[in-house]
């Protein structure tokens, strides 16, 4: 009987741990399947080597920017749309301005839709998850360079890269 109790109690403890193990599991799972539309982090430019460029295939990339209401910044893409060929390197820019009279630090999160498209969205330079400090009324241009993987499935012809800036609570 003690064995039964021991085993079941152990199982309960393991399941408690499992709840926490779900976090890295989920993140890994998302990276593999694009479940939550987060692109994998920054990648090196040598991804270009593995690309096979099909000049006839053009897809549309939209850029979108949100500012959390607690952050008094202006933040927008400098261009709304871009026609790109998968497998080639492109660059776009986002504009941010601190509208307030004091220095503020913000941090951006990003998300790609459709979600599965995030698997093919490779950024070689971006401002995701790095802290940005802007002085009062300071303006800044933030570049993003990216490659859409040429393995992008045929059913996707339009995707959106979206950034949201949050105030970094100290």
């Amino acid at each position, binding site marked *: *009987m003690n064995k039964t109790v021991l085993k*079941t109690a152990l199982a309960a403890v393991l*399941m*408690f741990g499992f*709840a926490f193990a779900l976090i890295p599991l989920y993140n890994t799972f*998302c990276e593999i399947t694009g479940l939550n539309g987060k692109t994998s982090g920054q990648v090196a430019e040598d991804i270009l080597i593995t690309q096979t460029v099909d000049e006839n295939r053009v897809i549309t990339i939209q850029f979108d920017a949100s500012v959390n209401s607690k952050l008094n910044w202006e933040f927008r893409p400098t261009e709304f749309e871009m026609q790109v060929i998968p497998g080639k390197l492109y660059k776009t820019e986002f504009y941010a301005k601190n509208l307030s009279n004091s220095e503020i630090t913000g941090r951006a999160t990003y998300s790609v839709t459709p*979600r599965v498209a995030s698997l093919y969205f490779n950024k070689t330079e971006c401002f995701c998850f790095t802290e940005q400090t802007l002085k009062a009324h300071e303006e800044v241009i933030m570049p993003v360079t990216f490659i859409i993987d040429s393995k992008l499935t045929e059913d996707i012809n339009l995707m959106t890269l979206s950034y949201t800036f949050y105030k970094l609570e100290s």
Partner: protein
Amino acid sequence: MSHAAVATHDHDHDHKPKGFVKRWLMTTNHKDIGTLYLIFALTMFIFGGALAMIIRLELFQPGLQFVQPDFFNQLTTMHALIMVFGAVMPAFVGFANWMIPIMIGAPDMALPRMNNWSFWILPFAFTMLASTFFMDGGAPAAGWTLYPPLVLQGGQNLAYAVFAIHMLGISSIMGAINVIATIMNMRAPNMGYLKMPLFVWTWLITAFLLIAVMPVFAGAVTMLLTDHYFGTSFFNAAGGGDPVLFQHIFWFFGHPEVYIMILPSFGIFSEIIPTFARKPLFGYVSMVYASAAIAFLSFIVWAHHMFSVGMPFGGELYFMYATMLISIPTGVKVFNWVSTMWKGAMTFETPMLWAIAFVILFTIGGFSGLMMAIAPVDFQYHDTYFIVAHFHYVLVSGSVFAIIAGVYYWIPKWTGNMYSERLGKIHFWWSAISINVLFFPQHFLGLAGMPRRIPDYSTQFAEFNMWSSIGGFAFGLAQIFFIIIVIRTIKGKGTTKATDRVWEGAKGLEWFIPSPAPHHTFQDGEAVKDEQLAHVSTH
């Protein structure tokens, strides 16, 4: 009539501990603890029901008449938490305590002292949870699903709610360990697994579910706690977390949780229906397999609660297919119950009436469940009153009906008194009609576009909400009547003495001990006879 099992124990009637504290506070007797659980569950049922009455009162008419929107959200949240964790689950643990040892010929639960702890944690946990009503900012108001980031706006009540959930989680896990240890080790020598009553089987499976998922829930709310107080970012998008992750973890717990609430009820009705059909349960073995299959499936369908969060196509497809599969084992169960009645010699005492109502109403709840398994259609149903109607059909006319039916079925054995059949039938018809007035119109409300969890609604929804509220008040009142019936039965008012067998068609060990059941039944290693059992199937 065989009293062999207890012949040597008849004097045990007099061995109950004397004094209130010794008898109840320090009890290790499975029957006393079972009674405590049932009384606690009934108290919580009334508390949770009272909250529901205020909800229905506010929704009686369009416009806000009685409560502020924020308090309304507290009501819906607390109603759910209290009904799920305070009423339904403890009631089933009460049944498990009372009946499992008797049904398998064991003298008590395997771990009597732990049994006492698992119960006495509960009143403290719920006092803590209920105390949030009196705090600044009130009780949790983000729904029982506790979705972040909303739940993190709740203020200090979060800490209390989380600790209450931890405590009742520990209680549930201890209870589950106890049930498993009892069933696996304490069965009478010739009580094979496939001779166990179905109630014991379903509880064994439920106990494994509890051990698997209650800790996951505890983990999830712990992460909420650290997000709120210690600056972690598990679910905070600004910090790199993902609020949807909580939903995945929650429903990984939450879906098995709904089967935790329904499997024991399947067990209870699988005892009742054969008794009053005077015919063995149809497909005993397939019932066991179906229960196990439902339990297994419950782990792989969770995200059907989240079709609208925007999963990739493949995920939606998988969860849709997997969810549709659940209807197979559930259907098998319903078909088996009907086949048990088929060509029986039925009588319709109160427990059987509840069972029949259960089969019909639970199946209706199952149908709406199948409808919402279809992911593209769930884009419409999700978070509307159609969902509210669905889960009340399965949880009230499933779980709560099972608890009420179980009380009518076994209370003669517990108290030695027959309840009043006349009052029991009044209670049944009153409840069976009012529950449909209460929940059936909610299907229409949901389809017509009324979202759930709103304190006020557009005037086009007025008529059905009024009906629903009237049904709600009637159903609430019927349960007060139920308490009166139970008290009268315990006190022996207007009742007759129950025989040992109680029901003509009853089979199973509990019917071969005296009524009321003596304080101690069975001795270690005491063999039971196959003739006393309902199922001796070995095929």
